[in-house]
């Protein structure tokens, strides 16, 4: 009883400290951000010596002591996986694209690297902005490709208008980021709730059907399962300015709301694509459910998630700090360390059931945090209700006593 009380006390302290740390990281990030974009634009001049800003998205480059500008630099942004991708395009006075620079990106660096390695930008160099330029997508990094394409097109718009008086931006339809996958995520989450509630004799079969569908659709097809980076995007508010893929945010929001409402987590056992992969591997091997009991193993993933979220908030780039093996598993994208991590997870899954879920998965710390605070909030409410009831009872008893004294 005493140790439970002490443990609860430290959990309360940890809960408050983690919220304070997240707020501090957010504040630190906001003081760190400076307007260094114009400094970067300076470096993009090719023939010009002086850079003049015409408006927010357009600069002109001039040679000293000459009147006419020799080149223009346009700025544009596109919506990527984790937020905005900013691009600058240097265009000659004839309208030819001379230089393309990626100023900033909130996508996972591996995805951006894949797009850059595909020579997507080099294919546009030398082309005239007066003509339409179409860009082929890069498979496995569609959202990042779309973000970059959108940003380049938008960067060319102000230059095109300045040089030729053509305003193509007015005719462009805004890209819709709501997709059928988002609707499917909502539908599958509803089905997961139903499957978890039912007492049907084929419940296990329904569960497997959902797991396998989720693995195929949210895993191998779209790689839109949520991770620590999605949690970072959600709390940083980056989704308010636009995201290239809302599916993972929708799934995460539904999971959080359901845990708050019912204290139950239906995602891990019924919808998680990586959980499904581990379950499939477990069927191939001779596995057993093993748990590590020491307190350290419970607290390390919590600390890891907190550090990751703080870094994501501080650098305003949550997608960069994703540490799960999901990217390698479903898209073969990620660092060498994550590749090794994925490999050892796959091998261990053949012997131990769901090793990733039992160790470093960020879903457990998130669920624990919500459940603990929910319970804490409920107990505070119950205490207040109890106090009010006691006061009411005392008042009633007091008035009864007074009434009986008066009648005497």
């Amino acid at each position, binding site marked *: 009883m005493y140790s439970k009380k002490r443990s609860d006390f430290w959990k309360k302290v940890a809960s408050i400290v983690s919220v304070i740390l997240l707020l501090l990281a957010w504040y630190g990030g906001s003081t760190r951000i400076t307007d*260094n974009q114009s*400094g*970067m634009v*300076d*470096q*993009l*001049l*090719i023939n010009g*010596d002086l850079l003049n800003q015409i408006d927010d998205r357009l600069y002109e480059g001039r040679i*000293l*002591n000459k009147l006419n500008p020799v080149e223009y630099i346009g700025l544009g942004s596109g919506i990527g996986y984790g937020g905005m991708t900013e691009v*600058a395009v240097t265009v000659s006075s004839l309208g*030819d*694209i*001379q*230089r*393309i*620079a*990626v*100023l*900033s*990106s909130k996508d996972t*660096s591996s995805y*951006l690297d894949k797009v*850059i390695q595909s*020579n997507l*930008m*080099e*294919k546009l*160099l*030398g082309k005239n902005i007066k003509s339409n330029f179409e860009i082929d997508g890069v498979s496995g990094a569609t959202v990042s490709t779309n973000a970059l394409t959108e940003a380049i097109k938008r960067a060319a718009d102000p230059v095109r208008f300045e040089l030729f008086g053509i305003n193509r931006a007015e005719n462009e339809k805004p890209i819709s980021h709501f997709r059928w996958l988002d609707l499917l995520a909502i539908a599958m989450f509803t089905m997961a709730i139903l499957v978890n509630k039912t007492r049907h004799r084929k419940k296990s079969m329904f569960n497997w059907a959902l797991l396998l569908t989720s693995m195929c659709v949210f895993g191998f097809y779209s790689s839109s399962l949520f991770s620590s980076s999605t949690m970072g995007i959600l709390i940083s508010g980056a989704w308010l300015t636009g995201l290239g893929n809302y599916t993972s945010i929708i799934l995460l929001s539904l999971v959080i709301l359901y845990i708050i409402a019912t204290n139950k987590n239906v995602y891990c056992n019924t919808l998680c694509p990586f959980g499904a992969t581990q379950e499939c591997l477990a069927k191939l091997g001779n596995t*057993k459910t*093993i748990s*590590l009991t020491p307190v350290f*193993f419970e607290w*390390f993933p919590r600390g*890891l998630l907190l*550090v*990751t979220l703080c*870094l994501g908030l501080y*650098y305003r*780039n949550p997608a*960069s*700090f994703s*540490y799960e093996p999901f990217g390698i598993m479903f898209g073969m994208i990620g*660092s060498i*360390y*994550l590749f*090794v*991590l994925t490999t*050892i*997870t796959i091998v*261990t899954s053949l*012997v*131990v059931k769901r*090793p*990733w879920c*039992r*160790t*470093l998965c960020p879903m457990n710390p998130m669920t624990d945090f919500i459940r603990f605070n929910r319970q804490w909030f409920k107990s505070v409410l119950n205490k207040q209700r109890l106090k009010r009831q006691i006061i009411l009872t005392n008042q009633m008893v007091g008035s009864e006593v007074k009434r009986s004294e008066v009648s005497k």
Partner: protein
Amino acid sequence: MRKKLLFIFYIVSAVFVCVHLGLRVNHLTQLEASNTPLFVATYSEHSTSSKVPVNDAINYKEWAEKFEEQTK
């Protein structure tokens, strides 16, 4: 035996995750300190295209000298 395996998996995974995060922090810090674009591609008349190393996007020293000469 399985418990030992899970323990080893835990430690190895934790080490890889920490190294991965450390490298990410290092990369982002360096990138911010350099104040240069993430990637620059420049058109060259001699070839269809060429990538320019970010730090060589413009020779600042040469530019400053030229500027001083012309403004004297």
